[in-house]
């Protein structure tokens, strides 16, 4: 029996039953949750073994839609063999923030770090949110759509990075 | 009967130099680990003296016990205390101790050279077998006592270094 991929509406219905008022909207693909109710809804979803039983946070990633960010949660049930997609809209480009789901799923620990590292989305309540792949002090958030060059049009090198501008001199100078 | 021949004499002076210089090293070394290394050289020099005095078995026992066990134990103890505790400096008692020791050395050397020791001329080196027989016949009581002492020391050492967690574990079970 293959996995049943739940539509957003099905998921939204189930979540509304568990935590009323937590769903923002739902589409055919995903169910959009309200950020402030996210942790509560996830807790309920995880512990609801008779309902959807979404115990396993399979995947967590963020998408930049220019106007806003979306954080996507792919959830899996083992006993019921169903798969659901949750989404949360994150507004603001300066300091986007949503609550962290690490208290619910330990597996979100590294993935939230990665999303923070590459998108700059702050997951509030994360025990150790740090830049996991890039180094501390890296300028900018590379996976954002407006990251075309390093801030300030920096040039290649360890402190600099390839920008849109063409380089004049070769990056490595030969020692004579 | 003194030790005749060039070989023993050479060995004696060489061993004396090694032993005393390295013992001085134990005194002078600022780093505790260097002091231990000097101490090991001293032990080996003393073992050399034992061979010179025709006590091969004791010499080997000296190397096995002192170098192989005691020195290694000291090293272990040093490694268990952190870097800050590895300083080998003197307390304020350094100068008085040195004076006292020099005085004692003077007295001892005077006594040694002033006394007419009744030296034997017919020395027969006892074999290991003789030593074993003596330990298990004449000296059997001290031998047993020594073994009891060793056991007691072992148990005492284990009890001393037990950590509070371990004691708690034992109390639970």
């Amino acid at each position, binding site marked *: 029996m*293959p*996995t049943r991929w739940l539509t957003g509406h099905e998921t939204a219905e189930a979540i509304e039953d568990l935590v009323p008022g937590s769903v923002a909207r739902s589409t055919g*693909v995903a169910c959009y949750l309200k950020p402030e109710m996210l942790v509560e809804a996830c807790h309920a979803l995880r512990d609801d073994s008779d309902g959807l039983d979404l*115990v*396993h*946070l*399979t*995947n967590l*990633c963020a*998408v*930049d839609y220019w106007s806003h960010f979306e954080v*996507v949660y*792919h959830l899996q049930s*083992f006993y019921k*063999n169903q*798969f659901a*997609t949750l989404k949360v809209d994150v507004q603001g480009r300066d300091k986007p923030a949503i609550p962290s789901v690490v208290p619910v*799923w*330990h*597996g*979100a*620990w*590294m*993935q939230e770090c*990665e999303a923070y590292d*590459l998108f700059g989305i702050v997951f509030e309540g994360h025990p150790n949110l740090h*830049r*996991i*792949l*890039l*180094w501390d002090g890296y300028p900018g958030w*590379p*996976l954002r759509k407006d*990251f075309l060059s390093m801030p300030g049009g920096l040039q290649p090198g360890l402190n600099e990075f390839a920008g849109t501008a063409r380089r004049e001199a070769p990056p490595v100078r030969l020692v004579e | 009967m003194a030790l005749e021949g060039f070989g023993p004499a050479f060995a004696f002076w060489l061993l004396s130099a090694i032993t005393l210089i390295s013992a001085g090293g134990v005194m002078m070394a600022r780093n505790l680990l260097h002091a231990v290394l000097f101490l090991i050289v001293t032990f080996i020099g003393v073992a050399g003296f034992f061979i010179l005095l025709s006590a091969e078995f004791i010499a080997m026992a000296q190397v096995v016990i002192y170098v192989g066990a005691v020195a290694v134990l000291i090293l272990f103890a040093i*490694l*268990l*205390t*952190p*870097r800050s505790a590895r300083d080998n400096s003197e307390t304020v008692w350094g100068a008085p101790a040195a004076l006292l020791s020099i005085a004692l050395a003077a007295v001892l050397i005077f006594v040694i050279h002033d006394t007419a020791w009744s030296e034997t001329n017919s020395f027969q080196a006892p074999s290991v077998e003789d030593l074993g027989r003596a330990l298990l016949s004449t000296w059997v009581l001290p031998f047993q006592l020594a073994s009891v002492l060793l056991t007691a020391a072992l148990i005492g050492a284990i009890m001393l*270094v*037990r*950590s509070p*967690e*371990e004691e708690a574990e034992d109390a639970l079970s």
Partner: protein
Amino acid sequence: MTSAIKSEPFILNIGPQHPSTHGVFRVKVTVDGERILDAEMVMGYLHRSMEKLAEERTYTQNIPFTDRTDYLSSMSNNLGYCLAVEKLAGIDVPDRGQAIRVIMAELQRLASHCMAVGAFANDTGAWQTPVMWAFREREKILDLFEMTAGARLTCNYMRIGGVAFDLPKDFVPMARDLMKTFPAFIDDIDGMLTENEIFLVRTRGVAVISPELAVNGSLAGPMLRGSGIAWDIRKADPYCGYEKYDFDIPIGYQGDSFDRFIVRLEEMRQSVRIVQQALDALPGGPHSTQVPLALRPPAGEAYARVEGPRGELGYYVVSDEGPSPYRFHIRPPSFINLSVLKEMTVGGSVADAIVALGSVDIVVGEIDR
């Protein structure tokens, strides 16, 4: 650890250059004597920002990137990405293409598990012998890959809509021969390691992951199955016609390193079974459907996953009807499996930490991407 001796806690860097980190990966452990008090992972030394690069290239051009994430199982990576794009664009794959994909994915699992088993034995201290034996067998599989795709490691063989080339003439008999001899190798390793008391005491009860933690920590693959959770994407959500093949899911007992090891060994046996079945039932016909070079899938998103050698290998692709993906995200199993490393290592000794790290079977190219 029974070591009762307390000393100053200090920080030990395992990595970035260390024989047992399998690449440039670093674990900062705070140790007290030999006991680990805290472990912190430092990664990113191999970060190439593939997810950003993929946004600039066409869908087909992205396939080589997937080779280079998990460079020990490029076929599985190719497959996962192609499935995601096919799901997005609604492309069907002909039967022969699907069968070839299954054969390749399972051969890749064998090759990758060879490496995993050998490297794990290496970490326990069976220095070089199991790993050399495993490499010997892995070479034979890589020969098959070379014959088919022209490359041994980064095969770049799968295409959207099928596979790049049909199988060469000699492939089927050679693969059959290999599958006849392969179980003997698995039995060799089995006899050498699982019957070895030293190996048992080193791995049994070490780095135990409880089933609750395994589920909550988003683990996947052998890590999840070692904890006794029967979960395999090939069974639960069959792709490429896996429902047609007869195979079992091996699961462990208590989730220690030894369970993960025997699960991997048994998975190799099951993979041999699948390859044999697929070779026997290899259908004719085209190996691929025609897909426009500049593929523009309809706007939307797709998440497709395959059971890679290290676990659930997911690809999340978002399209905006452009020629290149709007967002391309990889769910890297060995990255997410590492999230329980701290729970596995803290309280154990340094030697146990190495065994724990070996039992995760990480590939740094996939962790850092």
